[in-house]
């Protein structure tokens, strides 16, 4: 029994698109010892998940492992038939996916799905599996571990589901667990708990782990060693401390720089009167109120960041402002004028001044319309531009968003990357020449480098056109970068609001303190120190039911 658990040499993986094979992984090496945690970092498309899955000789549909060797505990995997591999997967190598909700079958109880694995692989019988499940649920700190297994996936929260999935991965005591972005979809406060759980449990069972993420700060807490990937190739590999203190390659260094983007100049309100005022709004769907007595205002030339976790009411506030959800009480004012509650009752000019940019660029653009039509429609609809003038203006807008007009004007959305699509969404909002733009988590679905580009663009446009932004986000790093004023929301009410510097310096409201301290820092010891601090002060790690 050697210490070396996984040895991958010269791995080559191809992906297929439109019947052409492209290289995804171009000759990578990977070593992993027993009990060691390896972090894989990179942007989307770098090949991290592909490499992680290759550790159990699995290629997603549309991909194939073209060459290289994969030795797991001395056994060569590449030539093995599916029957042999099936005995390994789930038993000795486990996989924890990014979306726990998509990985659990909604029709079965959690404990059924847990027990299925050891029973099918003849490792335990049903009784043993169930009692082991309860024991593991206790160790991953799920509330009420004896009973929670009998719930269905939709009856537990996201963070609890993710921990249940981690427990499920451990059911056969595997030698290696592959964690594929397990906390990316969670709020910062929940993320802390899940990270701690994973780290402790991996140590306790001496399991080797591959931790995949695009968030360097998170990986720094979990991994002993880090590999940075880009375009299917290795950029840099080092122990965590070495990489944190002394990164060698430029690309690695650039991953840091992202987190330190700050607005170049502090913008101040250019007018006394706010462009949009949310006045004592209470709104909800049906019986329950999602927003309770919410009041804030936004001035031209300024960015107000609405910050909060899922369920805090940020998106609902956006829907009330745009008129999609008429408020039960209170109203929305645009330049002092009270807006009709429903968007159907508003006139063109009122609609024009309130524009929205969405989170998922994929669904925000009509896939059957060319960029010319997408950007051109607001021009013809609101500003009655036609013919040559319209064409010129479209090109102007494309240049503004830093896309070469000749190259992009005739394309369809699926011929653009995520960042480019988001830029087109911005151009579409700008085309209407609004005073106020709602940015609903516009960078949450993008990689850090791409997101930084978008933030810079938005900043420049704000200064150039004196725009007011309402920036909805759950990411405090973004808030620190671009906000002038901050509104912190918790369960539908505003907990704290004011200029950024005021909100982010003590004394804080308790919840703001919790949020701020939950943002991972680029320090390998950060998580340890945070846990100790919280245990000492008896702080409840999360305000949600997990």
């Amino acid at each position, binding site marked *: 029994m050697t210490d070396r658990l996984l040895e991958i040499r010269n791995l080559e993986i191809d992906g297929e698109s439109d019947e052409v094979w492209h290289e995804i992984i171009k000759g990578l090496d990977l070593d992993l010892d027993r009990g060691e945690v390896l972090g894989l970092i990179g942007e989307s498309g770098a090949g991290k998940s592909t490499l992680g899955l290759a550790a159990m000789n699995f290629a997603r549909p549309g991909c194939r492992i073209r060459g290289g060797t994969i030795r797991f505990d001395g056994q060569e995997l590449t030539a093995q038939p599916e029957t042999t591999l099936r005995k390994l997967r789930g038993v000795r190598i486990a996989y924890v996916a990014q979306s726990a909700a998509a990985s659990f079958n909604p029709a079965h109880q959690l404990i059924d799905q847990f027990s299925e694995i050891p029973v099918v692989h003849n490792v335990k019988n049903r009784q043993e599996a169930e009692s082991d499940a309860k024991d593991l649920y206790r160790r991953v700190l799920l509330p009420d571990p004896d009973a929670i297994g009998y719930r269905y996936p939709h009856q537990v929260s996201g963070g609890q589901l993710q921990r249940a999935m981690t427990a499920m991965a451990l059911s056969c005591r595997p030698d290696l667990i592959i964690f594929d972005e397990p906390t990316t979809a969670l709020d910062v406060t929940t993320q802390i708990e899940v990270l701690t759980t994973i780290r402790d449990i991996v140590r306790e069972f001496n399991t080797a782990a591959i931790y995949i993420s695009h968030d360097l700060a998170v990986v720094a807490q979990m991994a002993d060693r880090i590999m940075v990937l880009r375009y299917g190739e290795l950029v840099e590999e080092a122990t965590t401390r070495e990489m944190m203190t002394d990164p060698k390659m430029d690309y690695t260094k650039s991953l840091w720089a992202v987190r330190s983007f700050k607005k170049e100049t502090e913008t101040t309100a250019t007018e006394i009167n706010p462009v949009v005022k949310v006045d004592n709004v209470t709104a909800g769907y049906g019986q329950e109120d999602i927003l309770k007595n919410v009041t804030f205002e936004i001035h031209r030339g300024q960015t107000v960041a609405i910050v909060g976790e899922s369920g805090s009411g940020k998106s609902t506030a956006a829907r009330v402002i*745009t008129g999609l959800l008429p408020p039960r009480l209170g109203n929305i004012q645009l330049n002092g004028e009270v807006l009709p509650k429903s968007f159907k009752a508003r006139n063109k000019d009122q609609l024009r001044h309130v524009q929205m940019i969405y989170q998922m660029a994929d669904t925000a653009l009509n896939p059957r319309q060319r960029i010319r039509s997408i950007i051109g429609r607001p021009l013809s*609809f609101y500003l009655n531009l036609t013919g040559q003038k319209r064409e010129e203006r479209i090109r102007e807008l494309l240049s503004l968003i830093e896309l070469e007009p000749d190259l992009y004007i005739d*394309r369809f959305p699926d011929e653009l990357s995520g960042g480019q699509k988001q830029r087109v969404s911005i151009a579409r909002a700008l085309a209407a020449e609004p005073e106020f733009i709602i940015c609903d988590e516009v960078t949450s679905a993008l990689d850090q480098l791409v997101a930084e580009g978008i933030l810079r663009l938005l900043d420049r446009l704000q200064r150039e056109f004196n725009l007011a932004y309402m920036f909805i986000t759950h990411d405090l790093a973004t808030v620190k970068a671009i906000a002038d004023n901050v509104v912190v929301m918790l369960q539908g009410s505003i907990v704290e609001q004011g200029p950024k510097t005021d909100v982010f310096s003590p004394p804080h409201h308790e919840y703001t303190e919790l949020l701020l301290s939950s943002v991972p820092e680029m320090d390998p010891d950060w998580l340890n120190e945070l846990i100790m601090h919280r245990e000492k002060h008896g702080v409840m790690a999360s305000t949600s039911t997990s």
Partner: protein
Amino acid sequence: MTAQDATPLDPQIGRPRSTRLQGVFREILKAPITAKFGILVILVYGFVAIFAPVLTPYAETEIVGPQFDVWGEQFILGTDGLGRDMLTRLLFGARNTVGIAFITTVLAFVIGGLTGLFAAIYSGWFDQLASRVVDVLMAIPQLIFALMLLTIFGTSIPTLIIVIATLDATRIFRVTRAVSLNVVVLDYFEAARLRGERMFWLCIREILPNIMAPLMAEFGLRFCFVFLMIAALSFLGLGIQPPTADWGSMVRENAVLITYGDITPILPAIAIAILTLGVNFLVDWFLHKSSGLKDGH
């Protein structure tokens, strides 16, 4: 330039698509043999339907020879019960049956499609009302309902078209509403709505281009069903009336010839079968391609 936005991974992103026509042509060349057969069948039938008067040796209803004549030089496929040339009637039958079926399907799509789109966009009481009316109409067996309506309103060709189109529109309503609902919940639709776009724009420019694939497949299938229904109604005597050539009634008129071991009466039935088969193959390929694309992404 946006260096960090460019994704050199995928060389497809970086040059615009070739023209629509080139793309379509390439796709057809790559299609499986069944789909090519389907396309061929449709082209041939379409050609025949359009150019029937020019192609046929005789006129549609002209009595030109002895009854039930054998296949020979003068009458390539023999004659029918009244002495009319079979080949001529077959070719004209293509024009009548296929033509009427096509018009009916188009009308069904206009009625059912628009109603389905409105139901998806408006939701609320309109959706409820339309869906319930459709439920009631669909609860009655289609053929019997058609027979009843045709008996009441007469069997002229316009009546035939309207009755069948209305009955089939119910199915189209269901399909259109279902696929439109998928589109209506997406962000870009909400963005268009918030802009203040009117119903026409929302239907035609936002939703319709995105539901073309399932709708076209449905068109092919509906066409076959309508076609078969017209043939069935004609066979029963309530569809296209004589002396107009129509495959369904031709089967009925010449059925007695079967007792002599002659396959002539089956010819119209074979013509119906081949067209249905061809359209189905084409629709299969179409559906496979459009759903396959979803998997790939």
